């Protein structure tokens, strides 16, 4: 295992960055592990939430942003609800995702593909069109048969034609402005 060097000017930079992104003060975390204990996703994570918080406290930026855990978090708010230190842990995880997104670090390719299919659908129609998302996702991810086993009854519930709203241009503009700003 590598030795982590804790000396240096950058020790606190990551915590500051997270504070700026989310408004959350991670120095309040005393590492009780409550978030890890309550998280329904811990079993799927590469690092439990409390260790992600620890990485922020000790400036382990690379490790945290390249973790799979930040993508597998579903923002179910269990951690934020029960944190004895009143840290909005789910918001911290979201902040990490935001940074990872900006820096194009995607350790969970399928989730990224799904999110992008979602946002594409949103951009095109102003609303979400479930069948299109699945179709796009299947094509992009290469998992062509995802949910094909759900059967005809489910498929029947999905609209085959997307609903387009008048304001879809508004929505597209929102996304366009956002992209230009970045």
């Amino acid at each position: 295992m590598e030795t982590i060097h804790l000396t240096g000017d950058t020790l606190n930079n990551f915590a500051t960055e997270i504070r700026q992104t989310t408004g959350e003060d991670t120095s309040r975390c005393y590492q009780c592990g409550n978030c890890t204990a309550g998280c329904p996703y811990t079993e799927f994570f590469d690092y439990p939430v409390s260790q992600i918080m620890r990485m922020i406290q000790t400036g382990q930026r690379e490790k945290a942003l390249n973790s799979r855990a930040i993508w597998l978090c579903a923002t179910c708010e269990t951690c934020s609800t029960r944190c004895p230190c009143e840290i909005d842990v789910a918001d911290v995880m979201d902040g990490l995702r935001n940074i990872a997104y900006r820096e194009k670090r995607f350790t969970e390719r399928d989730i990224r593909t799904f999110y992008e299919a979602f946002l594409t659908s949103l951009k095109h129609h102003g609303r979400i069109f479930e069948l299109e998302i699945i179709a796009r996702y299947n094509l992009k991810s290469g998992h062509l048969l995802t949910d094909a086993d759900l059967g005809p009854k489910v498929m029947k519930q999905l609209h085959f034609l997307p609903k387009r709203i008048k304001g879809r241009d508004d929505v597209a503009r929102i996304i366009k402005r956002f992209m230009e700003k970045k």
Partner: protein
Amino acid sequence: MIEKEYAYYAGCSLEGTASSYDRSIRVILKALGATLRETEDWSCCGSTPAHAMDHVLAGALAARNLAIVERMETATLTTPCPSCLSAFKKAHAKVTQDKAFSDEVNQLLDLPYKGGVKAKSTLQVIYEDVGPDAVTSKVTTVLPDLKAACYYGCILSRPPKLAAFDDPENPVSMDRLLAACGVDVRDFVFKTECCGAAFGVPKKEMVLRLTHKVLTMVQDCGANCVVVACPLCQQNLDLRQAQVNRAMGSSFSIPILYFSQVLGLAFGFQPEELGLDKHIVSADALIRSRRPKGAEDAAPPVKEKARKSTAQGTAGKPGDAPGAEGTASAAKEA
């Protein structure tokens, strides 16, 4: 009874896989005397993918809708979908508390959001504005075979400061509304445990395992159906139940109903008026025994009637199915 007007935001899911939620909500709110005004030309709230990407973008996508509602001059926005609700509440909180955030969001919008909209889940509207007593007064039909586990999902009452509704660990609003309809509500301990949320498509194996846990606990508490208030929960539990069984070697056959559908049945509406025919795991067997309120247990003709009308319903002729009046007249005959 309330005479109240709400701006209504159905949300994308309720136009697709969760259309039955939309239908049943509209039916019961009308019965309870609430007026829903459509949020004109609403767009997607942004949901999980948007806030994963960027908080400002997510805020803008949600705030576009809030700005529309603001112009409708209806104080309260209601949406049945907890995910949309959460997006609205987060956007509203940040816009009203953080000036810099508000500026950034409004720079992306054509129509700025000033922060004047209060968002409530439709469950909260029915629980708080209508109340269990008013619900009881509308009940015409009892559902003797239903043993319900109320499953609230993860974000309806959490985090408590944002949700500002019900108890974050042991929410009771749905339990009480169902109890007000005379339904046998079980003590279910996984009320707020996460089902896997939006990961159904990209991380199916994860969702199947979480869903399996939830369904196991449902079975443990002696319930024979799950009552939900979230389209995503319904989707993961109902749509994917067969996948769960295949992947985990289980053999669940547990109908997943929206609370609005149960209320609708209790108010005397027919299953297909409430979209119950859309569900994958059929609830027919559980609701077959429903009968008019006040009728004796051993009143066979009513039971016969009820059974018949259900049979008609499932036969796929919604037009022929007797409506609320049908049940009511059955009650008179009895």
